[in-house]
């Protein structure tokens, strides 16, 4: 928090939930002055632009959304189809904003999948309450920071512009109701390609180039954006699944195509079908790298350790965040999030929280903490950054129940200890 206030070189993209009032007021004042000619595209730092991923929480985590011109790779989990949730929201968002969408799938009939696209949710009472509650939380936090008196005058601006923000936000990204399918007349504008029909890469490449050539040209500063969604790219049903080099070459072609035009491509990958070296190549090619992991049902130990375990569908891990036109990487506060369905309708991403533990029970915290760390490490094979978890305990006065404690990770740097 101190760093955001001090150094001018700190980019506003370090996604910290408790950002200082500086960056927030700066961005909110910019949002109110700048009238975007295309509401579906938000201007970002360093001459980049964002489009929404369809999941507002994910946009926030990634520092604004998916960068236009970036390639997003989602590594699937063989046990669960949660990556489809990401794809669905992404495509629906594009349709709602009238952005051209191209969908490629290894299914014989990709249009069948389009029937499952969610429709925008009407803001419910809970949602409005949630945004208000969110606003109150921030105020609490700010009070806790003991901000000097002269900054209080900015709070007034913040509250008045927050309403404007919400309206502007509604244009950029929507909450989607996964129970309501998208209207048929909107869905028909999505172009589909079946990967089964493309026997080799050259044919597939031509089809994609064809789509690119038919896109409307962006005029003046009215930035147009389009979206490409590819499901399960190297699944065995694709004709070219045996040819690793061809597939990597296609990903590279996709990246260069996306980079030189205003597009975002989201590609999901079943990781078990690729050799590890090619998987690494694709990971290097990706601008934003996400992975989705399933959580086993009825895991009693996990249920004891995490709050809200019953609602959790799976885990989303952010490995890499796109950095275009800059060399500074985005360091997230936490990179593993819980995927939840609120009221079976909308997809949210939440930080992992540790459940309260009874002090009367004899088990030591170290054992439960280390167990949890081990579970996280097992379920996140690549999350080498969770070395150990220290559970911050706040004991109630004379009480025995502990409050919910957020999960903190301890990173040891030689000669200094950094607790985040």
């Amino acid at each position, binding site marked *: 928090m101190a760093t955001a206030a001090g150094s001018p070189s700190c980019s506003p993209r370090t996604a910290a939930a408790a950002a200082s009032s500086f960056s927030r007021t700066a961005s909110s004042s910019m949002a109110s002055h700048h009238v975007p000619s295309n509401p579906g595209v938000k201007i970002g730092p360093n001459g980049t632009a964002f489009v929404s991923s369809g999941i507002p929480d994910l946009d926030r985590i990634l520092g604004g959304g998916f960068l236009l011109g970036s390639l997003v790779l989602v590594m699937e989990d063989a046990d669960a189809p949660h990556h489809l949730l990401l794809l669905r929201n992404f495509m629906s968002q594009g349709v709602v904003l009238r952005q051209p969408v191209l969908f490629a799938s290894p299914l014989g009939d990709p249009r069948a999948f389009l029937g499952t696209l969610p429709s925008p949710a009407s803001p419910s009472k809970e949602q409005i309450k949630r945004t208000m509650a969110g606003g109150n939380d921030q105020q609490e936090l700010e009070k806790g920071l003991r901000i000097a008196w002269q900054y209080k005058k900015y709070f007034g601006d913040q509250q008045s512009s927050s309403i404007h923000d919400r309206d502007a936000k509604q244009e950029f990204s929507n909450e989607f109701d996964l129970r309501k399918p998208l209207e048929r007349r909107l869905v028909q504008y999505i172009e589909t390609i079946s990967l089964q029909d493309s026997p080799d890469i*050259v044919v597939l490449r031509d089809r994609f180039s064809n789509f690119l050539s038919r896109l409307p040209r962006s005029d003046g500063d009215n930035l147009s954006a389009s979206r490409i969604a590819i499901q399960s790219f190297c699944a065995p049903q694709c004709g070219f699944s045996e040819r690793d080099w061809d597939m990597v070459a296609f990903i590279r072609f996709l990246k260069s195509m996306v980079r030189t035009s205003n597009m975002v491509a989201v590609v999901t990958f079943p990781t078990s079908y690729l050799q590890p070296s090619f998987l690494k190549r694709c990971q*290097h090619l990706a601008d934003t790298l996400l992975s989705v992991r399933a959580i086993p049902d009825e895991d009693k130990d996990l249920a004891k350790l995490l709050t809200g375990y019953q609602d959790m569908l799976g885990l989303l891990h952010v*490995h890499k965040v796109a950095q275009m036109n800059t060399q500074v990487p985005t360091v997230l506060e936490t990179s593993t999030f819980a995927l939840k369905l609120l009221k079976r309708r909308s997809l949210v991403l939440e930080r992992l929280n540790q459940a309260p533990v009874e002090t009367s029970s004899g088990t030591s915290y170290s054992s439960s903490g280390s167990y949890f760390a081990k579970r996280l490490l097992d379920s996140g094979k690549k999350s080498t950054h969770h070395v150990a978890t220290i559970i911050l305990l706040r004991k109630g006065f004379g009480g025995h129940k502990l409050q919910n404690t957020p999960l903190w990770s301890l990173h*040891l740097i030689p000669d200094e200890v950094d607790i985040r």
Partner: protein
Amino acid sequence: MNPSFSSPTTNLLDEALGIGRTGSVPWRIALVQDCVEASGAFLLHHLLKRSLSAEAAGAVVFLGLAQPFSHYDRVLRKMGCNLSLQRNKNKLHFIDLLDLEFLVAGGTDQNAIEDGFMNLYNRILRFIEANNLMHNNGGWIRIIIDDISLLEIAAQGSSSHTFDFLQYCATLTSELDCSLLILNHGDIYSSEEDQRLLSHLDYLSDVVIKAETLSTGIAVDVHGQLTIINKRALGELGWSSSKVYNFQFKLKENAVEFFYPGTKF
């Protein structure tokens, strides 16, 4: 942006690589190895900036396979170096290979790959010759490749063509006053049986720079650590020995901070 003052105080990286004030280097071939979690592109940006500074007497050929020119332009502009200006002054020859394909319709064709590489090499050679003519064979040339794993993909995995191309570029360094800087991704080869490209590069290079994350995890203040192995360093007694440097880095928009572990405040 102001080219008139002298280059900033040398930092740990310049010391380790032996980059002089005029931007000249004592090595011929340097290899940068990075991984998914810690990208090594900032090293290329740094060296590019040092090579194009006002006192630098040479020129740069940049094979940009990973990013478009605009990306490098913006990044270097924040670091105080105007790439478009240098390109117009012929000090920088940027070869945009973002959509490099040696493919011919109908699949891979070995001849097409060979021709593609030959064309690429000829382009580099032509620029070097033109530059030498202009400056009467004075001044050095730096060839920067970002990055070589993409050349491999463009060559459809045929390592023989990639080796040949590398060998041609390596001869350039010995015959003409060139130095070569290559970015490669080390973690791609860690599980592969065929490690030939990696070992070949390792053998050819005088300096190997490895960019990794900290073994303890990610942090906001330290983005990673560098291990520099300088193979042809001259020891005190005059015979060559390897010198190893190890320090950490933090990336900022306009510079990179290098410091020994534990000395960052």
